[in-house]
């Protein structure tokens, strides 16, 4: 975790992407070192948005800029982005240490400095002593911690969380959010997180993007959007008005 990198600005300019019947159109900017929460009904395009940024999908038109550099056409590995999924973040047959080390070298050719970085990342997420465990011997929360540790050793300025904590209970989820918050303060990366829980956005004091039918229909500070004066669509989604 050497060299504190400042987070990068993530911008989608007039990005169009068709997924079957669904036509999506994204135009949004997340300023450097901010946390953005993305919420919206299922099928509204939340995960697709992250997949576009990570490079797992290529838009039909428009451009994706990270730190002002057009990354629309470059391979996922070359983008300054790490992503944590809901499941399957870890290779089931590899232990914690190896799973994290893959973030440093996909061929597992590690220098001493790499090993030190791996160990300190594992320590940072609170898993010291569990380096040799296989994922099956970890709880759901611990597995996500390993995935975050790997993102730490990758040291990319943008972190994408795709419902990364959705399968955890409320207490664990809050712990993970606290971890994310602390890491964000230390490393100041730009974080985009898809979540089903608007209170996550409040917890992180994030800026909020509300998606409907493949487009952002509301944006702003979570505290403001989720208050009584927020937009009607968001209230319908929250179930506060019928």
């Amino acid at each position, binding site marked *: 975790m050497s060299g504190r990198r400042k987070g990068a600005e993530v911008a989608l300019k007039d990005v169009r992407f068709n997924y079957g019947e669904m036509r999506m159109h994204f135009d949004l900017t997340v300023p450097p070192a901010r946390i953005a929460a993305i919420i919206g009904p299922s099928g509204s395009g939340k995960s697709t948005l992250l997949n576009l940024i*990570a*490079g*797992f999908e290529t838009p039909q038109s428009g451009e994706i800029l990270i730190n002002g550099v057009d990354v629309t056409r470059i*391979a*996922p*590995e*070359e*983008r300054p*982005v*790490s*992503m944590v*999924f809901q*499941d*399957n*973040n870890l*290779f*089931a*047959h*590899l232990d914690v240490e190896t799973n994290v080390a*893959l*973030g440093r070298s*996909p*061929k*597992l050719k590690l220098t001493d400095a790499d090993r030190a970085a791996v160990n300190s990342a594992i320590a940072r997420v609170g898993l010291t002593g569990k380096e040799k465990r296989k994922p099956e011997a970890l709880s759901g929360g611990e597995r996500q911690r390993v995935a975050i540790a790997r993102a730490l050793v*990758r040291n990319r300025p943008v972190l994408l969380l795709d419902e990364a904590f959705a399968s955890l209970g409320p207490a664990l989820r809050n712990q993970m959010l606290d971890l994310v918050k602390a890491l964000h303060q230390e490393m100041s990366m730009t974080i985009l997180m898809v979540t089903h829980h608007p209170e996550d956005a409040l917890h992180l004091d994030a800026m909020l993007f509300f998606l409907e039918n493949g487009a952002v229909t509301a944006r702003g500070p979570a505290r403001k959007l989720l208050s009584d004066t927020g937009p009607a669509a968001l209230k319908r989604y929250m179930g506060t008005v019928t």
Partner: protein
Amino acid sequence: MPLAHPKPLAGALALAFLALLAGGALFSLAFEASRETGDTLAAFNPYLWRVARFTLWQALLSTALSVGLAIPVARALHAHQHFMGRAFVLRLFALPLALPALVAVFGITSIYGRAGLIAHISQYFGYGLPDIYGLTGILLAHVFFNLPLAVRLLLAGLDSIPADYWKLSAQLGMGNGARFRLIEWPAMARNLPGIMGLIFMLCVTSFTIVLTLGGGPRATTLEVAVYQSLHFDFDIGQAVALTLTQLALTLAILSAFRLTGRPTEEGFSLAVTTRRYEKLRVGEKLADLTLILLAFLFVALPIAGMVVSGLSADFARLFSDRSVWRAIATSLALGGAAALLSVILSLALVAARQAVAAAKKHPLFERALDTGASLILVVPPIVIGAGWFIWLRHFADPFVFAAPMVITVNAAMAMPFAVRLLRPVWDTTSARHDRLCAQLGISGWTRLALIRWPVLRRPLGVAFAFAMALSLGDLGTIALFGSEDVQTLPYLLLQRMSSYRTLDAAGLALILGVLSLGLMILADRGSRKESMQ
């Protein structure tokens, strides 16, 4: 008493049939061995050990070659999900297993044989003629059958890799080596022992290929040696010793196989494709596509060769030959009878198992009904055939029993597959309708006609077609029991081949291939519609 009810009774009868068929053969062998102890012991001679060694050696080589080549081909096919003709290649790879071995042998000689494609090319450039008879031919044929099988099974393993792994590998920038070591190998390795066990077993018990492509006593396996000692030398002591050795061998392999687990094609499908995100270099792409092309040619050329040489046969003459028509009629009659018997016995087992399981009173009987059908796989058809052949000759000319032997042995051999097709349907309809039928008082024949038949019709047809295709291609039993009076298509084909009437044989191979494939396609269509409902 469960036997007071018709279903358990029918199941017990089906089990008795299997026990009698296999047990009778084993008893006959044991009896003969104990009566002629000296002869039998003397027959455990260097010849037998040499044959046993070769049996294992060729199976080992065939397995290593098939699986070793299948791994890169499966990887290449999985890395390229979208090239034109991918579905066609995968369908083609299902074909060799559906072909009778004798037909495939014909295709292989049409490419690699003395008058084959390779021979023509090699002569054109002034090189000598290739000689494939012996180990080379056996390996070629075994790889032809098992490489595509291994590719499909390995691909099923690769398809079961979670999609997120491919995203991760792309994001982490894994190269070819890392992808193989960290993602693909663990997924394939899980299936690998099962796949190797299956292929090894298929090669140890392969009869037709070794009989036709083996080269004399140097390249012969136990099964073929049993056939030769009964058919040509009439050396009973030698046959008994060989059969016992083969039995011990299959038992040993199968018990080792039990430890490895059975490979499944679960997860394999033509329709659903996994997305891969990595960017391949041009060289990698080219290597992959070349590999796929080579594997495709290896499988497609013999099949094309079989068709082309078959079509050049003189069908007018062939069809004016009464023995051809008789062989076709005999094959269809024996195959149909075997399939019918197989389906009835399998249904009896399946129905009895469900009834006994629901009653929960006789766990041992339930287990017997459960595993009875698959136990028959332990005893290769040649062993059963040889056992009965040796026994029956005490009472009459064994060739008289050709028809019942072919029907019963083939029926028994198809039962494990038929049971696997019928059981899920029977069990789910029972679970769904048992209480309703009991409440409404629907039972007996009414229930069979009204409730069971509409659901079972299709799987029964599929099982029938499959069993019939299997027995149409069988050469093991008919090779022992066949004679001038009872000739099936494979038997006639073998005769024409050994009397060098190659063009006739090619035509017959095409007829046999079309018949078996037609049935297999029918079965496949049926089972696919089944799974869609």
